[in-house]
């Protein structure tokens, strides 16, 4: 219900806002340096910038909150005309519950796993006494409907683990909106979601914000997402506003070089024919690594088979000096495949060949040289680097372990490695927590390169990074490949990143290969229906894309859903617009090969998939 017009039009205003951190030695480090912006009723203002730009800090200021170690040092944050910067927690409590609501990035961490959803959604207004339980329930039900949640009457009676990630994200929005807040603060609410889920969530958010007439601050680093949902964009860099204006102006006619750079960092999905052309200078007869008929899974089942089988019948060849992109939604077995190749999860069927020679499935049976030649790079540099070791040691150990270099030579090699990943040699004497996210990811990469490997398995290495930083890491990978002839297996849920960089693409769905082939061919028709879904879900940085995508997707029924493993038939059956009942759910799909290395597993004819 729209707010009545008696209340004022300006919901939130930041006036010359300054926020600083206090260092150990007492020195003041400015984080936010005089930011001005206004949020009016019914308006979505996006704060956009990379990590460290202060966007989250500014958005939290709307709640009168600063993270531990930070403090307001100047200016005002006016919520409904009242400055919230100098208030105590007790004074802020009614404001936080009634006027402003905060939506965190991870719904899974926001919901209490042991309390039913409806109770949590309605808790705040009931607690604050603004609604009776009955009114709150009614409001919640209306929100479940507006957010297009399945079974709105009964979903509140479930526990958080009984709904999917995308649904939980929408339920979190219901939780925030249940108390009719004037201002909604959304902190990267779709960043952790798959592209297919992101569309549903964005669409629901957009609709509900409009219907409720609430104002919102939307924090994100993703311009493509912002273009869909925001009315006004504020571009932040290093705690300062670099550019601000209506979405249309910022997206289509950016003037500040930083905004232009943000736009440039968005990888558009390459048109077929513009993909990478394979360099053949490193080619040899045998592929760098070959995966033959591999099955793998977790747990101990009967007869040496795993209790839960994830991967089925995987066949992949990665040529020397080339990049294989592996793509799919979460739960499709992408990481499992990388772990099988790395030996962290021994395959239960099939074989691995390294440079034409058999590679033992389990880590313990591989020789040190075999271990050296296949390296694994983890997604989260934060947990992949030992927080108590100097960078010098993190990089020096694999150098010594694999190449036997010691003392001065080892030190020199560490400096070379840092130079290779474009970091200053002085970083050797730092701990991982003294580095930024992008720098840590470079060290993570350098550790794999220290082994002078032939195959590097990159598991979502850019997913936790901002667009610009991620693009820099991709540039680095491309350069390293040219210089060292290393092969990459690049795992990502982001099709545009993979497509810009990989020579070949494997589309995994529920542990099976749905489609594979050279990048150009996978991007061009004919498509597996799942590939088509992924391609159409990649957000484009232009206004109106969301509506178009939703239109075309609406024509296909039930396409949003979780990934389910199936024992027989095609696992995509439930979500497939082209499914043939009686065939697709009963019989495993055949491999359709066009003779040029482009394979689609589908019951439909290639001509039907155009």
């Amino acid at each position: 219900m729209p707010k009545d017009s008696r209340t004022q039009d300006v919901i939130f205003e930041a006036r010359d806002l300054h926020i600083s951190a206090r260092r150990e030695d007492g020195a003041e480090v400015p984080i936010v340096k005089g930011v001005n912006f206004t949020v009016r009723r019914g308006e979505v203002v996006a704060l956009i910038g990379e990590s460290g730009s202060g966007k989250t800090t500014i958005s939290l200021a709307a709640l009168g909150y600063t993270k531990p170690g930070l403090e307001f040092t100047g200016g005002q944050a006016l919520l409904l005309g009242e400055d919230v910067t100098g208030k105590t927690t007790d004074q802020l409590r009614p404001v936080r519950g009634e006027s402003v609501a905060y939506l965190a990035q991870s719904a899974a961490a926001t919901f209490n796993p042991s309390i039913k959803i409806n109770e949590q959604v309605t808790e705040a207004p009931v607690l604050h006494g603004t609604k009776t339980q009955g009114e709150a329930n009614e409001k919640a039900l209306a929100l479940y409907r507006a957010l297009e949640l399945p079974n709105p009457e009964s979903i509140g009676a479930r526990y958080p683990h009984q709904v999917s990630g995308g649904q939980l994200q929408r339920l979190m929005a219901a939780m925030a909106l249940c108390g009719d807040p004037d201002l909604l603060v959304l902190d990267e609410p779709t960043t952790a979601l798959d592209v297919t889920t992101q569309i549903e969530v964005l669409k629901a958010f957009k609709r509900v914000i409009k219907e409720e007439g609430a104002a919102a601050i939307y924090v994100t680093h993703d311009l493509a997402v912002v273009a869909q949902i925001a009315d006004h964009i504020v571009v932040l860099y290093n705690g300062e506003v670099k550019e601000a204006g209506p979405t249309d102006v910022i997206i289509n006619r950016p003037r500040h070089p930083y905004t232009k750079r943000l736009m440039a960092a968005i990888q558009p999905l390459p048109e077929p024919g513009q993909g990478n052309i394979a360099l053949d200078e490193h080619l040899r007869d045998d592929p760098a690594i070959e995966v033959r008929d591999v099955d793998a899974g977790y747990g101990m089942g009967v007869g040496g088979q795993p209790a839960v089988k994830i991967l089925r019948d995987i066949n992949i060849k990665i040529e020397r000096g080339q990049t294989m992109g592996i793509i799919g939604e979460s739960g499709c077995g992408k990481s499992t495949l990388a772990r099988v190749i790395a030996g962290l999860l021994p395959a239960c069927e099939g074989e691995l060949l390294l440079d034409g020679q058999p590679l033992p499935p389990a880590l313990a049976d591989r020789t040190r040289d075999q271990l050296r030649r296949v390296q694994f790079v983890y997604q989260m540099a934060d947990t992949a680097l030992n927080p108590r070791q100097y960078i010098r040691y993190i990089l020096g150990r694999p150098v010594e372990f694999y190449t036997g270099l010691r003392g001065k030579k080892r030190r020199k090699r560490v400096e070379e490695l840092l130079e290779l990943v474009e970091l200053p040699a002085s970083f050797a004497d730092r701990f991982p927590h003294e580095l930024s996210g992008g720098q840590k990811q470079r060290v993570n990469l350098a550790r794999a390169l220290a082994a002078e490997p032939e195959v590097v398995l990159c598991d979502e290495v850019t997913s936790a990074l901002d667009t610009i930083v991620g693009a820099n890491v991709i540039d680095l990978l491309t350069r390293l490949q040219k210089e060292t002839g290393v092969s990459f297996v690049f795992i990502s849920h982001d099709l545009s990143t993979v497509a810009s960089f990989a020579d070949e693409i494997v589309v995994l769905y529920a542990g099976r290969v749905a489609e594979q082939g050279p990048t150009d061919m996978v991007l061009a028709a004919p498509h597996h229906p799942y590939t088509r879904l992924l391609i159409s879900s990649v957000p484009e940085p232009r206004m109106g894309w969301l509506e178009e995508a939703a239109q075309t997707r609406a024509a296909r029924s039930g396409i949003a859903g979780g990934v389910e493993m199936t024992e027989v038939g095609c696992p995509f059956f439930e979500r497939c617009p082209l499914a043939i009942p009686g065939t697709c759910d009963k019989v495993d799909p055949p491999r359709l090969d066009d003779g040029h290395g482009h394979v689609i597993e589908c019951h439909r004819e290639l001509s039907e998939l155009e």
Partner: protein
Amino acid sequence: MSNPSNTEHFVAPFEEGVAFEELQDAPPRTGYRPSLTGWIGIAVVTFWAVIALAGPWLAPYGENALPFPDAYEEFQVPQAGAPLGTDVADRDILSRIMYGAGRTIGISLAATLLAYTLGVVLGIGAAVSGPKVDMVMSRINDAFLSLPTIMLGLVVVAAIGSSIPVLIATAGLIYATVVFRLARAIGMEIMVMDFVEAAKARGEGRWWIITREIWPNARMPLITDFGLRLIYVILFTSSLSFLGLGVQPPQADWGSMVRENLGALQYGQSIVPVLAPALSIATLTVAINLIVDDVSAHGGGRLSGRM
């Protein structure tokens, strides 16, 4: 100052060709700085540490000397010559507290160190071992944990006879079970981190993983718990002494001093003979607790959450 209207296009001044560096998003470093309660704790613990080390030299009288040999009377009130009065055998309480400090703290510290050596080595060993070895070690440990500590201590000391080495060994073994469980839990938590898996994938041996990957990360939480465990051991050895199975007379120790002087509560002129050693135990344990709380609050209270 008013804000620009939202239909306006604001562009910050810029220079062409300026590169935008990747921003530093690492939080500023904050070291541990004790709060007021932390400082109080540190002051009190330092005070007792000095007494424990230098007590026998600082004490006005010997451990069993009489301050008023000519006027023998038990439980004399505090007065000039005996600031805390005298005990059941007319000995100077202040001197006995100072002698007892070294013994109480020394025994407890030695026992806690023993508990930590055993518990940490076996606990982290169990964490890095296979599930079968871990299972056997943990079940044996659980069996010992299920026995009430003070009863177990009583039985052991009663059977072997009381001496300081027996006290240390008994308390050390009993508390090693608790440390084992904590060290194993911390070890398990670190074992599943990616950097440990990366070390395994590199082909590193078990010893390397324990000493280079796990121990540096387990050290801090274990050191914090050490303080807490020391409190329990002080209370445990004091309880044994109170029951007459700890430090044997005429040697002084805070627990046994409470027991010796219990009569003062009924027919003495002052209650200081009981109160003084009891307060000594209380101030020391509370002070250690203050430090532990302060340190773990700085570290996000992870440890206190786990306890």
